[in-house]
């Protein structure tokens, strides 16, 4: 099947990275779509956790906020927000955290705080929210983000959340023992951290995408792995499920007022 968008390619690729026994801390937007797609296809038993306190939720439509009522109604259990951050996230119970960013560097450090100077910002972004501790407390992190020179930068304006820091063993120097961003899934390719240097290298390219497009969409000098895979295309079932999910979601959110 070739009839899919770059965003669908990215979402399906992210979904496939999830396993049936994962316990996943889900953010709003693309992560939510990817996690629920995984649940509705190859990973029916995946545990999805939203920071609003809903554990093991199975929403029929994608929530607009991280605290929509359906998340609670379909959850195994709903806990308070302090408990969520203390016992479940900080307690090390989450295997995968999904994060996006406004700016990202090659070591997977992310900025969702400000563009420009913190005290005199060009653009004030929403801020870190759960991300600073998601980034360090989850077993591993999947980064999902569309490529652009503005977003994929040599140096981010503000380190909202730690990736591999300055690379190499730097992450561990902060006392962090979790794995960190183990893959970066974009609309063009998959990047994975270099085993030693921890900078991202391209390991798989989506069908039809050229190396030049990736270089064009990246603000740092792109490194390609010696052997590069072609990312498998979305399956018919995955696309059908994903589109149905988006259609149900659009209908549900527009149905009001």
């Amino acid at each position, binding site marked *: 099947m070739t009839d899919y968008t770059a965003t669908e390619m990215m979402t399906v690729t992210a979904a496939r990275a999830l396993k049936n026994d994962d316990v996943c801390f889900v953010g709003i937007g693309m992560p939510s779509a990817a996690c629920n797609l995984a649940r509705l296809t190859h990973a029916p038993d995946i545990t999805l956790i939203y920071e609003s306190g809903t554990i093991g939720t199975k929403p029929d439509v994608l929530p607009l906020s991280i*605290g929509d009522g359906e998340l*609670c109604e379909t959850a195994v259990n709903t806990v308070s927000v302090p408990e969520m951050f*203390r016992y479940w996230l900080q307690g090390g119970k989450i295997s995968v955290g999904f994060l996006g960013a406004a700016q990202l560097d090659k070591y997977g450090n992310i900025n969702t*705080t400000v563009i420009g100077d913190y005290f005199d910002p060009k653009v004030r972004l929403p801020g870190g929210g759960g991300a*600073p501790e998601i980034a360090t407390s989850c077993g591993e992190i999947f980064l999902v983000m569309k490529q652009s020179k503005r977003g994929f930068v040599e140096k981010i304006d503000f380190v909202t*959340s730690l990736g591999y820091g300055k690379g190499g063993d730097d992450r561990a120097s*902060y006392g962090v023992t979790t794995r960190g961003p183990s893959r970066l899934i974009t609309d063009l390719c998959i990047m994975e951290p270099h085993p030693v240097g921890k900078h991202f290298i391209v390991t798989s390219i989506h069908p039809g995408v050229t190396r030049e497009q990736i270089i064009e969409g990246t603000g740092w000098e792109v490194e390609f792995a010696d052997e590069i895979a072609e990312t498998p295309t979305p399956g018919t079932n995955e696309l059908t499920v994903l589109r149905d999910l988006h259609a149900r979601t659009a209908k549900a959110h527009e149905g009001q*007022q």
Partner: protein
Amino acid sequence: MVARFMSLKEAVSSSVRHGDTVAMEGFTHLIPHACGHEIIRQGLRDLTLIRMTPDVIYDQLIGAGCARKLIFSWGGNPGVGSLHRLRDAVQDHWPHKLEIEEHSHAAMANAYDAGAAGLPCAVFKGYRGAELPRVNPNIKFIECPFTGERLAAVPAIRPDVAVVHAQKANKKGDVLFEGIVGVQKEAVLAAKKSIITVEEIVDNFDDVPFNAVMLPHWAVGAIVEVPGGAHPSYAQGYYKRDNAFYKAWDEIAKDRDSFAAWIDENVIKGGPEDFAARRNENRA
């Protein structure tokens, strides 16, 4: 504190003063919008507003000029985009300069927990490798006296007033929260005074489970029955989140004039009784 039933007008005028530190909580669910409007109507000024996710409720208070300072951890319109009034205040000092103190969710959740627990600070595994400690002097680090591990510390949140919305109070003034309970219980326990708006006041709680999320009447302050008082947020079991309003807010708040017109029409000329109709339009 002990529960007293009163009008929303009386609750705000008797509990909130200019310059107070006010925490209005509700994590997506049960956000006390009706009380936010009342604070705007009463023209309160120089408030330090605390809230994990400032959201539309604080976009309104900030745009209306009530706030001097904001303590927060994520300032967006969930699933929609920016909070334009917050951004305008931070970037262009409109309607005036807004001081901000920024944390992570984990820090704020722990700080509420510490406030409820009577501690001066919260200690947690946070901010490792993150840059906020550089710009926020209220983030410090201590060492575990047993392992030497470096742990983050932030001051406990102890607001002058906590404002929350709940599903029910009984006639004694015990309060029940159900569903996504956020940090509401902690905010009330941490605060000197509290205002609790509820969907309804019932005779008793005989059918409530043993381990329900509750506040007994002697641990709360003003209780006000405001059906629909969380709109455009929601109250589980009563009405759904008005996602369409959250999307519409983006347009309303983008422009200073359209924002001012909306506030005048819906807040200044409105009252808590208007919320019941919004509840009916969004029935669960």
